[in-house]
């Protein structure tokens, strides 16, 4: 049996349990009152409005400095992500086609042949 003190997974499980326990205790006490809900949502609402205004101001400010805003950088990242997605899609289609063509005479083997779908459960699991 693994030594619990030196097993990172065992430590992680213990930590998980302890953190979860302390969270649950705090949560039950702190958040069950309507006052908590009211106060939190007032703060949340104010912060949402302020965040929107701030974001609009920053956009104008960065435009004046001839610098890209966060939104423009996010757009750029989105375009890159879209190109990556299309590459992944093309790669996946190519793999499927090479798999389908593998049966044809002279065709190359697909990169990673799939195992047969013939597995049966152990006798005691059979429905």
């Amino acid at each position, binding site marked *: 049996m693994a030594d619990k*003190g*030196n*097993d*990172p*997974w*065992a*430590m*992680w*499980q213990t*930590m*998980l*349990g302890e*953190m*979860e*326990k*302390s*969270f*649950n205790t*705090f*949560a039950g006490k*702190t*958040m*069950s*009152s*309507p006052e*908590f*809900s*009211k106060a*939190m*949502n*007032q703060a*949340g*609402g104010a912060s*949402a*409005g302020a*965040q*929107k205004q701030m974001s609009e101001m920053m956009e104008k400010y960065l435009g004046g400095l001839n610098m890209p805003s966060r*939104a423009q950088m*996010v757009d750029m990242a*989105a375009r890159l*992500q879209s190109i990556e*997605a299309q590459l*992944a*899609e093309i*790669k*996946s289609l190519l793999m*499927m086609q090479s798999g389908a063509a593998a049966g044809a005479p002279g065709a190359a083997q697909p990169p990673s042949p*799939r*195992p*047969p*779908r*013939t*597995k*049966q*459960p*152990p006798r*005691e*699991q*059979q*429905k």
Partner: protein
Amino acid sequence: MNASAPFDQLASIPERIQAEVQRAIQRSIKGVEYLTTSGPSLGSTPKDVLSVRGTMSLYHYRPLADEIYRVPILIVMATTNRGYILDMVPGQSFIEFLLKRGYDVYMLDWTAPKPEEKGLRMEDYVLDFIPYCVRRVQEDSGEPDVTVIGYCFGGVLSLLYASIFHDGPMKNLICFTTPIDFREMTLFQNFSDRRYFDVDHLVDSIGNVPPEMIFSSFEMLRPASRAISQVQLWENIWNDDYVKSYRMFDRWATDTLPLAGEYFRAITKDLMWDNKLYNGTMSVGGHRCDLAEIKVPVLHAVAEHDHIVPYDAARHLIPKVGSTDKEEVILKGGHVSLVAGANAIRRLWPKLDSWLGGRST
């Protein structure tokens, strides 16, 4: 003498002092290392990307068995969590467990929605993303049947999908900690109390809803827990194993995804406020979602002490589905430890294997 030997097992006072000095030195060295290195690599089971469409990604994990079951599995992740939480590290991964037991595993995973995806609605998730992924799994595997595993809110999406597409091709449905009666989601009910929470103002103001707003309840509690855990980290930073386990937990606890604005609005109004799934009045894109229409075999795993999805919120799933072949498994522990704790490994994973194996041929 070894600095990692338990302190109280060291014989003499000089030995203890020497051990403490060594630990202090190690703390300084390891403390610098901690700040300058990244954490353990999570989600490292080999996989191929089959499709990426904005916030949605579909992966296929490479089989690890010589022979696999006929029916492939599609795991639908919760829209707030990243898929690697089911694939923590080699040897401790739910995904790896399934692959080694001979299952062919696909995962519908999510990334943070981009600003232009703020208009994604419940319809996009239930009537587009999931059916699209099911079709891709069918094409890729060459099999007409698919088993769906829904994790937490991924379970809700899977149930909505299953109730609309009840003529197939879903063969089995497994849900983890899936809420049905949203009145019982006490933490979130309080957060989204309609007397104080203006969801329209929030979504109209900021578009996608960042995780710190969705989970501000967690955030407000985090300072205490985080302070304690930081102290524990410093005390144990000389110990590589502790640091490794700390980093795994820390990444899990802090890596939550934002939600698309319209989708969040629908969750708040239809589920949190009107409890439509429980009341049987839920519809998506004009399609009524009646859980009684679900007739495939269903397994629901729930946690006894889950304060995020309390048992009272989840226990209605099995009575409400129309299947005759259905079962609920209750495990000790909380929301997170259900899928990654010791009980999950000892009880839940083997139970799931024994339930699913016979239904996957």
